[in-house]
């Protein structure tokens, strides 16, 4: 199926998110959409999937114009979309999730789940997407859940599949598997639209690349003839350095010390097991490891966001065994949570309000409990400019921002505080290369100003770029703490729970 978008224009207020965009997606091609945060990629795809109505422009399927009032119309002509946040029911089986919205019922209205399971099996065999149709979705790793989403689209006979930042939360191995699957689908004649910020993936998988900047198509590129640096420059409109100039660290006193930290989850399982480490002022300690090995729970425990914690945490000279979020923040601990939508932002609040979410009670923004909104607004304008957040103004609600810009708002808030310790989980997830460069530089600056920086990242590239020391976690335990020059293979082995010889 050939899909043509012609002259797509969509504005939100006076912000033009898509400005006369024309793109052709050919059958049997992987078409990558590349562009900085807020360039308008998701908006364009939401139009194609019937979630948004364009102001002008048309969609042509195999040459004939169509109009989508809702995703149901898009699904009917064979367009499927996999969102980053999966729309799956966690307690249902794979088959039940796949048939959801398209249930096959028997004579008395009973579900014919066995038929659905058969359909899942058939599709997963045909396209090499291994998955157990009877498995409960919440027990599956993220990569497999994503596979279920793809199967769901394929059982509805999608001939064009849209994947919006599908690799942001995948492990490198899962990413490779996904790319292989996508290639397989392409070879069977489907067209694929792939949105990602990872240039390596784009160059590996894409047949055609369309680069969008500020709502306009600025270039079309063919991967082998375009280098990563060139792509980055096309996206951002300037030269981007893909490596960080990190200088040398001059660590000082121990600022953050964690001793014997153990965390239990609601089901009484040990998720963090007797973890101890130090972060000194002026150094960056990165916690590496495959997603789900206790990193999230570890930082949440330090921030007082886990309920059942044993162990001790020292910040500066203060010791606590029951960290309280408010107290940690008051001690100068900045915190960038992993899940920005859920924990980092209030999507119905304005950007200005979000930028003071955890400092509203300080004398900077309020006196005697009375908020000084004039000051907050002025501060917000400054921060938004400094962090290059693409938004109409400081008063739009955070929910309307593009994914990467949301992350920038959280970072702007936390990095602009008076810090002694900074804890950042996945600080650059969803950011474009230009913004990653910027954030990495800021993190190094923060380090050099004498802050103890703790970063959790599943991106090995990022870990190696930033870390002064690397702590690898495996199954809730410290698998090893190594210097920044240790070979990647050793890191990989530690992450798999093997101690290198």
């Amino acid at each position, binding site marked *: 199926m050939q899909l043509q978008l012609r002259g797509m224009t969509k504005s939100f207020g006076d912000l033009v998110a898509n400005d006369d965009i024309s793109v052709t997606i050919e059958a049997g091609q992987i078409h990558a959409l590349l562009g900085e945060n807020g360039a308008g990629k998701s908006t364009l795809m939401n139009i194609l999937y019937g979630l948004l109505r364009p102001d002008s422009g048309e969609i042509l399927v195999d040459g004939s114009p169509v109009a989508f009032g809702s995703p149901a119309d898009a699904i009917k002509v064979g367009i499927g979309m996999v*969102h980053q*946040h999966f729309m799956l029911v966690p307690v249902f089986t794979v088959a039940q999730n796949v048939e959801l919205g398209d249930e096959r019922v028997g004579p008395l209205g009973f579900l014919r789940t066995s038929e659905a399971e058969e359909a899942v099996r058939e599709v997963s065999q045909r396209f090499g997407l291994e998955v157990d149709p009877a498995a409960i979705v919440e027990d599956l790793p993220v990569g497999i859940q994503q596979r279920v989403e793809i199967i769901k689209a394929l059982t509805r006979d999608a001939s064009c599949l849209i994947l919006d*930042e599908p690799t942001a939360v995948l492990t490198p191995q899962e990413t490779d598997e996904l790319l292989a699957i996508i290639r397989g689908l392409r070879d069977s004649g489907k067209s694929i639209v792939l949105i990602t910020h990872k240039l390596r993936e784009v160059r590996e998988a894409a047949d055609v690349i369309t680069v969008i900047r500020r709502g306009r198509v600025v270039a079309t590129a063919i991967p082998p003839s375009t280098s990563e640096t060139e792509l980055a420059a096309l996206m951002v409109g300037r030269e981007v350095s893909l490596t960080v100039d990190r200088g040398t660290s001059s660590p000082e006193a121990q600022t953050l010390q964690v001793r014997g930290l153990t965390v239990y989850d609601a089901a009484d399982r040990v998720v963090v097991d007797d973890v101890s480490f130090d972060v000194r002022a002026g150094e960056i300690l990165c916690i590496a490891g495959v997603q789900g090995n206790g990193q999230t729970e570890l930082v949440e425990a330090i921030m007082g966001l886990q309920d059942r914690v044993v162990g001790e945490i020292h910040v500066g000279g203060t010791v606590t065994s029951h960290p309280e979020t408010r107290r940690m923040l008051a001690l100068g601990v900045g915190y960038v949570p992993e899940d920005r939508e859920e924990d980092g932002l209030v*999507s119905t609040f304005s950007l200005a309000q979000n930028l003071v979410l*955890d400092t509203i009670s300080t004398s900077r923004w309020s006196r005697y409990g009375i*908020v000084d909104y004039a000051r907050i607004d002025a501060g917000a304008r400054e921060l938004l400019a400094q962090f290059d957040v693409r938004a109409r103004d400081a008063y739009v609600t955070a929910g309307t921002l593009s994914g990467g810009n949301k992350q920038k708002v959280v970072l702007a808030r936390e990095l602009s505080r008076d810090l002694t310790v900074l804890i950042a989980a996945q600080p650059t997830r969803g950011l474009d290369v230009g913004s990653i460069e910027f954030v990495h530089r800021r993190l190094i600056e923060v380090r050099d100003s004498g802050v103890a920086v703790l970063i959790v990242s599943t991106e090995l590239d990022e870990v190696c770029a930033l870390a002064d020391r690397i702590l690898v976690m495996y199954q809730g335990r410290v698998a090893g703490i190594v210097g920044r020059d240790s070979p990647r293979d050793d890191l990989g082995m530690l992450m798999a729970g093997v101690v290198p010889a």
Partner: protein
Amino acid sequence: MSEERSENPTPILDSRTRDTLHPPAEPPPGTSAEIRRSVLGMNLLVSFLSVVLALVIGGVLIVISSPEVLSAAFYFFDRPADTFSAIWQTLSSAYSALFQGAIVNLSALSEGDLARAFYPMSESITIASPLIVAGLAVAIPFRAGLFNIGAQGQMTFAAIGGGYVGFALALPAGLHLAASVIMAMVFGAVWAGIAGFLKARTGAHEVITTIMLNYIALYLLSWVLNQDWFQREGRNDPISPILPDTSVFPNLFGLSLRVHAGFLVALVAVGVMWWILNRTTLGFRINTVGANASAARTAGMNVGRTWIVAMLLGGAMAGLAVTMNVNGTDKVVTAGVVGAIGFDAITVALLGRASPFGVLWAGLLFGALRAGGLTMQAQTGTPIDIVLVLQALIVLFIAAPALVRAVFRIRGGSSEAMSLAKGWNG
């Protein structure tokens, strides 16, 4: 004169004559977040159109229940014009009576009898005053993400404390009124605080605890009204002594109009609550906790404490609301002093989109509908139940904004679908 009025509370069939024993059914669990989202996210236009739509449907009901229209419809095919003119007659007289009974009596106005001309407006405001403040009692916890179904019980409990101070103490004028009002607010806050505390400490759902507290307060009041220290001397029926002039809101425009200074207090309460919600760190916390509790927690806010404070504030408003009757309209505590205002307050808060000024308009609208409904019944025979139907319809439409949008073909629903479908990649 004032005594007679207080014992036989009011000639108006307001919310208080409805059965107080049947609180509205508890909403099914799990929907509160949805309801919250739809109420806070709804735009002004939808609220307004909901009222319009309700008036239209109410009009249809008025027409088909009218005997004149029915009899004219008998020979519709002979003289269709008769039917249409009967419909017009019925509708215009009903709604004009509703208007004149709610706002201003036009014939009295043309005669220059100001007291009679503005009697309807005075009635509307008198009925609206407790509704507005009780609406705040529901709206403020709502902003923190809590459903306060217990304004009824909080008002009832507050009537005991505020009423007792009002009739039993001997204090100078002004001071006495203030003491009685403050006591009522403290009692209301305590009663709501119990639910807030249970929610924060044990996770007990506030809908259940506030409903149960409603019953406890109700029977507590009946019991108190039969105790020597509360019951009026020489009476066997459950009624308190009359409040002396020192603890009563003065009438604003003389004795012929019932509107009293409590309305001004209600206006101040609206302003103060707006200020708290929009200009203080406390309000910021309340809004944050309600909009996204886990972000609030991550930002170092104490979610449980914020819930308690929001309930205390709401309860204080419930307490203030009941003083509009105890220290204003009734000047006495009876079993029916709260009526069903605490439940109507939920509707008012929803219609007002849980914002203080929204609640003010919603309360005034409901007060006007009640006052106008009575005149409509008296003048045109249209049953006052129509007013209850109107209220119910308004709530129905507000609960289903998509319906209203569809009827008036307003675009904008798609943004909701967007937010549902958008995920990580924002």
